[in-house]
Each structure stands twice: as C-alpha cells, then as structure tokens.
C-alpha cells in the first residue's frame, strides 16, 4: 500500500473500529468471571449466563417480550400485507392520505407516540397489560411491513396476474396462486422487521408496561438505574445474537429477491 492511501485507510479503519468496538466490548464483558465490570476481564466464564438463566426475574420478562413480539408479528403482518395490497390500487388522493397515516410512525418522535398511546390506553385499562403492548407495537411495526410488501408488489409484472385472470382463474385463486407466492419474500422481511421492532422496543414499554407487563428491554432499563452488573452484558449479548441473526436473514432475503428481479 502506498503512502497516499495509508492515511485515508487508517482514518476509515478507526471509524469502523469506533462503530464495532462497543458491541465487541459488551460481548467480551458478558463472558467475564469478575463480579464487577472490568475490561479486559481477569478470566472468562459463563457465570453471568447462568445468573440470567437461573433468574425468574429475567426469564419472565424474556418470555413476555417473545410473546408480545410474536403477537405483534401476526397482527402487523396480516393487517400490513392486506393494506399494502389495497393501497396500491386506491385512487391517488386516498392513497397519499393512507400512506401518510401508515408511514407516519417512522417520522413522529417515538416519545410523542408513547405518551399519546399511554394517555389513551390508561383510560381503557390497557396499561400494565400485554394486549396494550401488542396494540402499540403493531402500530410501530406496520410501516416496515407495508413498505416491504409494497416494494415486492411494485416489482411484480402485472401481466402475470392478468394472464391468470384471462385463463379463467378466480380473483381469489389468482391471489393465492400467483400474487402471494411472488410477494412472499417481502412479507417475510416485513414480519422479521416487525418482530425486532417489538422485541427491542423500550420507550412505549416504559409507559405501558406498568408493573404487570414488564418486557425484557424494560427490565434491563430498570436494572441499569441501580447497577450495571455483567448480567445485563449477558442479556445484551443474547439479544444481539438474536437480532443480528434475524436482521441478517432479512438482509439476505431482500438481496436475494433483488437479484432475482434484476436477473
């Protein structure tokens, strides 16, 4: 490597280090044997993982988070896919309004959404209930499903559906045998995003969890107020592995889909 390229390469290398290093530190600390946070750890062990898996206080919020995320996936994917199919065929004025409403959670600051939902849900007894969390998380997750499915739909050659219809297929048959298989990757990517959106969500949970529906991020947040023992590093590492795996799947699925389309 010549001298002219050494400087930019070093600068970019340092910035990339800045990006990845904090994540690496959390993962390394989670395998520490020390009772306090120190880096590098004096020795390695799995004690913080056994502390996590042995504690009902951690496992209960974990199951709740998984349950809420799963319910959010079902609701958001179902409503979002149907809406994406409908919106593309709406008259223009109506389409802009509908898309604006559905995509707005991407722009509206999450604290505003959170306290608005808290304000309304506290009147209906939905604070401290998993149902309230599922309803709120679905609103936050739906934009990802709708954009993902819409992108898939936009890539479909309309002649495929027209051909099926002209060959005598019913609209329903055309949908299930032609349209749905073609948009399946988009639906799947949307579902993965919906899962992560709910599983990682904290700000809404801060207001809606109450004492009856404490999610995993909420439990971590509460713990961080008092101590930062390495159990949180172990929990963090587990969630990093889960979300990176799921996002990696979504990323590859989308890339794969783009390649098919351009081929």
């Amino acid at each position, binding site marked *: 490597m010549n001298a002219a390229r050494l400087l930019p390469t070093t600068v970019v290398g340092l*910035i990339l280090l800045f990006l990845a290093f904090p994540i690496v530190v959390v993962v390394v600390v989670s395998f520490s044997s020390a009772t306090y946070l120190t880096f590098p750890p004096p020795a390695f062990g799995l004690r913080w993982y056994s502390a996590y898996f042995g504690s009902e206080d951690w496992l209960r919020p974990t199951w709740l988070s998984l349950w809420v995320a799963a319910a959010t996936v079902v609701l958001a994917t179902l*409503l979002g896919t*149907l809406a994406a199919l409908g919106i593309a065929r709406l008259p223009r004025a109506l389409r802009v309004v509908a898309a604006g409403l559905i995509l707005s*959670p991407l722009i509206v600051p999450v604290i505003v959404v959170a306290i608005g939902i808290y304000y309304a849900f506290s009147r209906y007894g939905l604070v401290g209930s998993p149902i309230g969390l599922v309803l709120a998380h679905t609103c936050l997750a739906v934009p990802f499903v709708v954009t993902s499915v819409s992108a898939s739909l936009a890539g479909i050659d309309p002649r495929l559906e027209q051909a099926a219809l002209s060959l005598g297929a019913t609209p329903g048959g055309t949908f299930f045998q032609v349209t749905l298989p073609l948009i399946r990757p988009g639906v799947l990517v949307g579902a993965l*995003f919906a899962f992560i959106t709910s599983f990682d969500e904290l700000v809404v949970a801060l207001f809606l969890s109450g004492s009856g529906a404490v999610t995993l991020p909420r439990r971590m947040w509460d713990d961080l107020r008092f101590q930062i023992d390495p159990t949180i590093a172990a929990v963090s590492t587990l969630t990093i592995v889960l979300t990176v795996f799921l996002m990696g799947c979504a990323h590859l699925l989308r890339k794969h889909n783009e390649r098919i389309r351009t081929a």
Partner: protein
Amino acid sequence: MIMSGRDARGPKSLMPLLLAAPLLAFMLAFYALPVVTMLMRSVSDPVWSLSHYAALPDDTVFQKVFWNTLYTSVIVTVGALLLGYPVALALVRARRWAPLILILILLPFWTSVLVRSYAWMVLMGRHGLINETLLAAGLLEQPLRILNTPLATQIAMVHILLPYMILPIANALRQIDPSLARAASGLGATPWRTFRQVILPLSMPGVAAGVLLVFVLALGFYITPAMVGGPREITLSMLIAQQVDQLNWGYAATLSAILLATALTLIAACYRLPGIGTAFRMNTR
C-alpha cells in the same frame, strides 16, 4: 414504491378500500386518535386557550431544553457527517473489503439502541474501559468524568446514528457514473480535484438525505441522553417524559406539539430536495 399506484382492476372497485380499511381503522383507533387527543390537551387544559404556548417564550426551562436539544442534534449531525462520509466512500470504492466494511456498519445498526447505550456506559464509566486504559498508560492521575456529561451523549448518539448517515451517502455515491471520474482524471485532474469537483457535488442528494434523517432522529432521542447524558443537559424528550410522570398533561402535550412541529417542519422544508423522498424509506434498519 408505496406511492406508485397500479390500477390493475380499475379504480371503481371497492376491493382496495376494503383491504386497506382494517389497518387504517386500527391505526386511527390505537395510534392517530390517541396522539391527537393527547396533543389537544395543550389547548384544552385546564380551559380552552393558547396559554401554554403563550407562556413558552418566557419559560426558561423550556428555552434551555429546546436549545440544548437543537444544539445536541447539530453537533451529532456534524459529527456523523464527518465520520460517515469517508466510510461511505470506502464502502463504495472497496472491492475485496466491501463485505467486511458493510458488516461492521450493519452489526451496530442491527443492535438495539438500549444495548448500544449500555455499551457506552461500560466504556465511559468512572471505572470503564477508557478511564482504566488511560490510567494504566499513565496518561491520567484521576479517572476522567466522561459518563453523565454532554460529551457522552454526543459520542453515543453519533455512534447510534452513524449508519443512517453512511447508507444514504453510499447509495448516492454508488449511482455516480464511474466514467465521470475517469474523464476528470483523463483530463488531468488530481484525485483530490476529481473528488471535490465531480464526486462531492454529485453525492449531495445522499448527504442531504443523511443530514435530514440524522437530525430529525436526533431531535427525538430519549433513551441515550437519559442513560449516558448529564443530569442537567436534558433533551425535549426527557422533559416530556418527566412532565408526564408528574401528570402535567397540558405542558407535556405542548412540548410534544413543539417537538413534532419542529420535526415535521424540517422534513416539509427539505422534502422537495433531490434524494429526500427515498431517505425515510431507508429508516428500515
């Protein structure tokens, strides 16, 4: 994508509306109406008036928090731009290393904000990695106070928002016809001059998208400043949460309206710029 229609079955059919209706009703009931009703408290609490808004110019707490939020967002946006542009350039130009660079960008991007803020607590704490390293190297006598300062918030927010800057810029750089750079250097331009007069101007749509995205997201940040920031440098989001805890709904709603209006005004002002339309669809992690 979502804005482009495809009227395959004629515009008169009721089917599209029936398909979209369940989601639209759901979002109206559980999202739009709750937020709007809450925001209405800013003009209806305790009686119908604009007194909450009229009080803001003389409200020193609000003034301090609002300017601190804007200031933090500006610093974070500038920081993310300075660090993000070189990485975007490297990502687009690298051949063999491109997959590794992409992984190093996406790995933190896919990790939750809570976990990344926690990572910075581990690094910047009084006995955190940064202090221990500097002490061990003999560069410090006493641990530095980094955690719970404005600098801590700024560093952690730059880290969290950096991918939102890199990805739109890389996208714009990728769309530049490579023959333009070849033509410039063929005509005798130095690599620096080619960059300054060809690449940089053509990448501006990506820069505009990244800057807007990072700035608007930074405005609403809550978790990171609450975890690593200073006790006195609170952001608008933190003040809103605080007021809700104290059940000052009228004031909380007023602050929410200001935060929302600031974000929407910025987006509306920039929406016509090239490249912005696609920016908010990039907000899909």
